[in-house]
């Protein structure tokens, strides 16, 4: 393994100081993927020639030009639902297996503009429906900590690409927890930014009022670096905004201080919503979270127990609104303009293309959405869920304004066996119970590793105010500096 656990920040530094070249980095990453990824199945495709050409372009730049690039020569993996001109973006679906992107998504374009090398696209649950990456139409992705376990989902390929040491940085998307959960289960860091911080232009839509692009890496610093590159208003996505506090690269570069030092010596205040210690939570996971709370307390952080009473309704709200929005978004897959055209008259052609192109979870969610939005049930389900969403937003805002950030586990359990929940949709949906709230309210959430349970990584989640991504990054940075995660995946080393 060439990268030897190097971070994006370190790789950039080595290229700029001429210790290595972008081409040498890319060549070794490509060789590493070719040698080891058959074990994990993280990548669906590697952009070999394009990555090499991109690296050569970086190496040909002047010193001054290189120094201006935040991700100069850093190899990055992207999720299969992100458009990158000329490359296939299949969103893990047979429906799009031959779909070539006519343009590049804003997030990926910004990475490239800042010197990143896009090395390949990673496996995911079809259309980002799932919590384990098992819904991919193409391959199984395995957890580097135990190859019999799922990597979490839906950005499982991106999480494994980082956790197994192929790349220091990857992009994922998070609709109900799809960046934070695989980050937790693979022992890395993953952020879901505030809704509107990162453009959704060129991202295959799942549920539009929830979808956000997120960043996965091994350190909080790298996650902040990646986010600082892709964030910001985009003319192609009118839901984006330049939020009041941008992800501050100066704070990043000058190193992190204890919050006591930079918030007028007021101790950091962290809220622990009591409803987040859910029934059925793994005892070992719970113990790790309590230990994390203890470590923070010992170091001067003020821990405040508070309540978000509507938390128990978050999952039902999500599993009404998400399928409703997704079913509407997936109506575009009719085989007419792209995808699988089937024979027959217009209606018959639609039906044949959709029946053959979608996997079972997509069919399940589309039919859920059709039911929820149907004339007899739209009031009882869809409109009711929108109202409860509003209640949840108000309660969340009220809780988080009393503190700097909130804290809870990312998932009530560690990675489970491949196949274990595949035929039990409700059990699979319950895996999202701790991540959907931030998605519903549009707030930022980050998962950082906090020890092991049953030999597998546990994720600690910080959730913040809408727009205060720096708040969750700071809290995450503080925690990881107090309790560094030193464990390494058994299968993450090169032979």
């Amino acid at each position, binding site marked *: 393994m060439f990268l030897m656990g190097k971070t994006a920040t370190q790789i950039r530094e080595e290229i700029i100081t001429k210790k290595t070249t972008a081409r040498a980095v890319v060549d070794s990453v490509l060789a590493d993927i070719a040698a080891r990824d058959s074990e994990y199945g993280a990548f669906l495709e590697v952009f070999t020639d394009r990555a090499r050409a991109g690296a050569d372009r970086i190496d040909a730049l002047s010193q001054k030009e290189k120094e201006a690039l935040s991700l100069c020569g850093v190899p990055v993996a992207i999720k299969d639902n992100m458009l990158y001109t*000329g490359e296939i973006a299949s969103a893990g679906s047979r429906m799009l297996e031959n*779909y*070539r992107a*006519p*343009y590049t998504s804003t997030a990926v374009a910004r990475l490239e503009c800042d010197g990143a090398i896009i090395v390949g696209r990673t496996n995911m649950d079809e259309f980002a429906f799932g919590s384990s990456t098992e819904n991919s139409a193409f391959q199984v992705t395995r957890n580097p900590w135990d190859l019999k376990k799922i990597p979490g989902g839906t950005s499982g390929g991106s999480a494994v690409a980082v956790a197994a040491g192929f790349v220091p940085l990857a992009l994922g998307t998070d609709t109900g927890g799809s960046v934070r959960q695989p980050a937790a289960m693979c022992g890395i860091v993953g952020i879901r930014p505030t*809704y509107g911080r990162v453009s959704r232009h060129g991202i295959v839509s799942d549920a539009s*009022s929830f979808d956000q692009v997120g960043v996965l890496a091994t350190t909080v610093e790298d996650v902040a670096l990646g986010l600082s590159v892709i964030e910001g208003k985009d003319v192609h996505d*009118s*839901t984006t*905004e330049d939020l009041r506090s941008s992800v501050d690269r100066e704070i990043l570069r000058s190193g992190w201080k204890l919050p006591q030092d930079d918030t007028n010596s007021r101790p950091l205040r962290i809220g622990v919503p009591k409803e987040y210690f859910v029934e059925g939570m793994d005892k070992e996971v719970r113990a790790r979270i309590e230990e994390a709370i203890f470590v923070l307390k010992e170091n001067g952080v003020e821990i405040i127990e508070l309540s978000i009473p509507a938390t*128990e*309704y978050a999952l*039902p709200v999500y*599993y*009404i609104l998400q399928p409703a929005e997704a079913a509407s978004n997936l109506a575009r897959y*009719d*085989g*007419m*303009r*792209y995808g*699988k*055209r089937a*024979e*027959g*008259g*217009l209606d018959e*052609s*639609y039906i044949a293309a*959709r*029946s053959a192109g979608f996997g*079972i979870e997509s*069919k*399940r969610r*589309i*039919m*859920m*959405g*059709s*039911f929820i939005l*149907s004339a*007899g*049930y739209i*009031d*009882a*389900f869809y*409109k009711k*869920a*929108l*109202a*409860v*969403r*509003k*209640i949840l*937003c108000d309660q969340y805002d009220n809780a988080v304004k009393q503190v700097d950030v909130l804290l809870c586990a990312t998932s009530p359990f560690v990675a489970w066996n491949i196949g274990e929940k595949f035929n039990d*949709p*409700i059990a699979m*949906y319950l895996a999202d119970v701790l991540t959907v709230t931030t998605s*519903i*309210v*549009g707030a930022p959430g980050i998962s950082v590793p906090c020890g092991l349970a049953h030999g597998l990584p546990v994720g600690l989640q910080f959730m913040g105010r809408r727009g205060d991504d720096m708040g969750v990054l700071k809290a995450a940075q503080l925690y990881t500096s107090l309790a560094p995660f030193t464990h390494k995946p058994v299968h993450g080393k090169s032979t």
Partner: protein
Amino acid sequence: MTIHSMHIDIAKLEQLSKIRLTPEEHIMLSAQLPSIFAYVAKLQEVNTDGVNPAAYISDLLNVWRDDIPQEDATVRDAALALFPEKKASALQVPSVGARTKKKSVEEVEN
């Protein structure tokens, strides 16, 4: 309250969704969908009188942009190239209601 008399007609949902399930999928979803909807129907417990539904969580309102067409011939050509069937630079689709069988993509390619 319609939830108590909830009737899930899978055939109707197939029709609305433009999806035809295989017999195995039909059996599976007939068993699963009622329990999923029974679970999410938990929301009926919540009193939402006087609550303004939040379809959208951002504070943004009326985001305007200049009405200037942005044409990019490369993107247009790439999009056209994806069309499974086309005539000149127009998308060709089966005629609405036509009973004549159209050639499938595979047959065209072969």
